[in-house]
């Protein structure tokens, strides 16, 4: 009877919370925020993306506070986000103008602007490097900084998308710029059918594991397609807000790291075929999530019986906070409802036996 609704519950709960500090205390060495932020970048990126809050420092703090649980960290950041006044909406940022750190295409060898591998674990052997058990971090950091300092800087020009060419050729439909005010999923209930802006926001903040699994189901057989990654790009996008004194001016407030993906799928075009495009964009470096998002974006444009073609199924079950909150609530006492359930079960049995 661990947390029974009798007196004494309050002290037991306090003690449980104190025990957490003990679990977190582990060693005398401090886990500095700078270390988490700089050396656990991919985890920080994932947490920021699922939280929908771009702050490496706060993401690192959240991770430190909860023993590195990504869903607890997302939880902390989301709750903090609720307390912040929203002062501005940023201007539209075009990811064409991204300061690229990586750009690849699985569709064409040669793309205008070129491929740039950047950094990726894709090309490594996943062998445990036992030397890292003892590493001179300071020496490594200095050496890397020196290597970068010794390089001759090269200008990387912003480049158009791979899909631009295919649109010119008429293989991909060209759409009018949609300048509708985007639907804000953080301030409104999702009402189905949802506009695409709501779909993309929801997918972009979704739990990485959830949407990766769903996208996998599409590829494996519970879906139509094996899409081609037309383009995956990762880089820094500048964020600006309108300058209130003068509508023609804007204020630069910083840059954020994004991963941006377009996938191509075959689609019907009356009696011939065309290519359809799915889009994904997520905060930080999280390529599989961005690809999964692009796969689902396209899949939701199709109709059929697969779960991934149902927008309510896909969009309502992938939010880290919502799914983990509701699953964990099962641990709350359900004495009253269970009593009611018992009563219903017993009544059907008693009457049958009597009858």
């Amino acid at each position: 009877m661990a947390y029974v609704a009798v007196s004494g519950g309050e002290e037991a709960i306090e003690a449980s919370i104190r025990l957490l500090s003990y679990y977190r205390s582990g060693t005398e060495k401090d886990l500095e925020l700078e270390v988490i932020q700089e050396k656990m970048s991919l985890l920080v990126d994932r947490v920021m993306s699922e939280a929908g809050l771009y702050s490496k420092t706060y993401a690192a703090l959240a991770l430190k506070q909860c023993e590195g649980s990504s869903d607890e960290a997302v939880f902390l950041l989301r709750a903090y986000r609720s307390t912040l006044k929203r002062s501005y909406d940023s201007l539209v940022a075009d990811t064409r103008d991204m300061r690229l750190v990586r750009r690849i295409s699985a569709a064409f060898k040669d793309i205008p602007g070129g491929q740039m591998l950047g950094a990726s674990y894709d090309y490594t052997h996943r062998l445990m490097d036992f030397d890292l058990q003892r590493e001179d971090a300071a020496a490594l950091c200095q050496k890397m900084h020196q290597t970068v300092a010794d390089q001759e800087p090269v200008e990387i020009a912003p480049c158009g998308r791979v899909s631009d060419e295919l649109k010119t050729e008429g293989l991909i439909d060209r759409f009018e710029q949609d300048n509708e005010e985007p639907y804000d999923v953080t301030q409104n209930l999702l009402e189905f059918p949802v506009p695409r802006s709501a779909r993309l926001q929801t997918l972009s903040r979704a739990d990485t594991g959830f949407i990766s699994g769903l996208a996998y189901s599409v590829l494996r057989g519970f879906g139509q397609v094996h899409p081609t990654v037309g383009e995956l790009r990762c880089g820094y996008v500048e964020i600006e807000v309108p300058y209130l004194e003068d509508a023609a001016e804007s204020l630069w407030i910083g840059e954020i790291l994004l991963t941006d993906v377009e996938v191509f799928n075959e689609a019907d075009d009356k009696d011939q075929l065309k290519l359809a495009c799915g889009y994904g964009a997520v905060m930080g470096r999280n390529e599989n999530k961005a690809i999964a998002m692009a796969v689902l974006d396209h899949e939701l444009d199709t109709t059929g019986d697969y779960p991934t073609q149902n927008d309510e199924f896909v969009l309502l079950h992938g939010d880290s906070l919502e799914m983990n909150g509701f699953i964990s609530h099962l641990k709350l006492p359900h004495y009253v409802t269970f009593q009611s359930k018992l009563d219903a079960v017993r009544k059907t049995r008693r009457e049958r036996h009597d009858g």
Partner: protein
Amino acid sequence: MMDKYNYAFLDEGSKREIRRSVLKAVAIPGYQVPFGSRELPIGRGWGTGGIQLTLSLIGPEDTLKVIDQGSDESVNAVNIKKFVKMCTGVPCTTRTQEATIIQTRHRIPEVPMTNGQILVLQVPLPEPLRIVEPQEAVTKKMHAESDYAPIWLQLYESLIKYGKVTISAEYPCLVEDRYIMNPSPIPKFDNSKLHDAECLYLFGAGREKKIYAIPPHTKVVSLAFDDVPFEKESFRGKKCRLCGSTDTYLDEIFDSATGERYYQCSDTSYCKEVRSK
């Protein structure tokens, strides 16, 4: 720590927006009003709809009571009480009569509530039609058209199969002859307290982003057939082992040492009050 946060946690704009949704809910009893549910430091599914209602309504002159499954000391109640107290400093009570706002999970207090009191109920799944239709777009249309045949059919089928309507807690009600509403997972025992009440009932579903209300003196009828009346949980021949009450909702407790089964009031503050008389 809380000096870094606004009074009642949420920013004033968010609280005002929630109050606007509450007004709409009161104006259309039983109708689920969508709202921009904010994330809180407490888990989705742990009463965040109720907490947002409480936070947006509460002021320094209020007195708060929070119960979970009837108990003031259960884990969810303690947690929420601590949080609201931390960000508002309002006094808390366990006595139903003293509270201006009572937030609850799965119960309505045994002491009848009065005019001037608000009961905030935490709702996990606000949609009463979800048991017959998984899609929100479809259930919304069913409500608009008062197309409630599938849920009646569900009741009928359970009657045919088991000889009883087997829905246990969160038994659906018809509000003002218009909307079918999920009263939240209160036991059927509490359903009658919703009808023609003195107080305001507010229902908040944080994860599902819906608010609905039963204003005072609203007609609330639990679904039943003319020839098969609504039946609540029965505790015939049982009484609370602490206070002796025979007219309250009882928790069944099983003593693993003796193998004995006994009952006690689920509403712990009511039980305490009866004993102290």
